[in-house]
């Protein structure tokens, strides 16, 4: 199960996500030729506290579901990665539906800290051409999964 601080998520097998991404890694990353930009920089994901992690993963996965995956289908068929795409999208969907970040006032500073990290990611995304940004974000799912793996307990 995932333990993002107080948030627990069961019912997701991380190895299934890894297998899905590994199957399309070279296809997807080859499409990204703007190698001088990294969206999920270390300032976004390094030294995230447990308490922040629930807010941050919720924001990032919602962004992936509502922006990246939603606008990616045209490429999916072309690159024959529908199955892998579906595995990632549906499992991200499960995680987001089970995450309930606390809305307590005393968590405000923590949620704001997580939000600042998320805004760093969004800013980098918006500074790029949308199509290129979609491709890059999709190619960086391995960075996202590597960070999420820290919160996964067998």
């Amino acid at each position: 199960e995932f333990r993002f601080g107080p948030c627990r998520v069961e019912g997701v097998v991380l190895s299934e996500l890894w297998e899905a991404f590994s199957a399309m890694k070279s296809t997807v990353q080859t499409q990204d030729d703007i190698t001088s930009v990294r969206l999920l920089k270390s300032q976004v994901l390094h030294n995230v506290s447990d308490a922040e992690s629930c807010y941050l993963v919720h924001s990032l996965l919602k962004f992936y579901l509502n922006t990246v995956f939603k606008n990616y289908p045209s490429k999916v068929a072309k690159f024959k990665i529908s199955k892998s795409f579906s595995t990632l999208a549906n499992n991200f969907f499960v995680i987001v539906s089970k995450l309930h970040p606390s809305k307590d006032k005393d968590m405000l500073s923590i949620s704001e800290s997580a939000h600042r990290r998320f805004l760093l990611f969004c800013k980098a995304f918006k500074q790029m051409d949308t199509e290129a940004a979609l491709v890059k974000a999709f190619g960086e799912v391995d960075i996202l999964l590597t960070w999420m793996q820290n919160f996964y307990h067998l």
Partner: protein
Amino acid sequence: RAVPCVSGGLPKPTNISFLSVNMKNVLHWKPPQGLRGVEVTYMVQYFIYGQKKWLSASECTNISRTYCDLSAETSDYEHQYYAKVKAIQETKCSEWVETGRFYPFLETQVGPPEVALTSGEKSISIALTAPEKWKRHPTDDSVPMQQIYSNLRYNVSVYDTKSRRRWSQYITNSTLVLSWLEPSTLYCVHVESFVPGPPRLTLPSQKQCIRTLEDQMSALK
């Protein structure tokens, strides 16, 4: 200073890829086809994903071998990298050929532990020494791979040569005592490191065998 050359005058090297074990990251490639017997040298550059420019691999400029150890250049294993190589022959050179995005943290093979066996009358002690991360200098302190992968486990496989039966067990610590074994019996052991996460190639340890001591009772008779 690299002598300027006419790009595209030579065919490109082929099969470029990283071979990575315990964070020792070595770039390999094959010579360009159709240049048998021609004296060709190579130049290697690498790039840190998210940064701005290609950097020269100082140890791999005008080399004739077809590999380049980029462990030092790619030692921050949380970064991702690209590498490229081109062939040079006098004033002619090939175009660059580039790797895909290389992510050492996910792609390095975790080598097997060192295995030391000692036997008792009806027992075998298995002592495991964690595989070590690549070191810049032999005198540097050793860093066990467990420090990088906290969820690293070992799959110990034991084979009883008398009954021809095998069993295995996952352990996380570095010692295992198998007791109540058969005396005077040859047991063979090999161990694999296992890191949960993305699919990763594994390197099993050499098979080692040891015989349990003779049963004291029958020795006295």
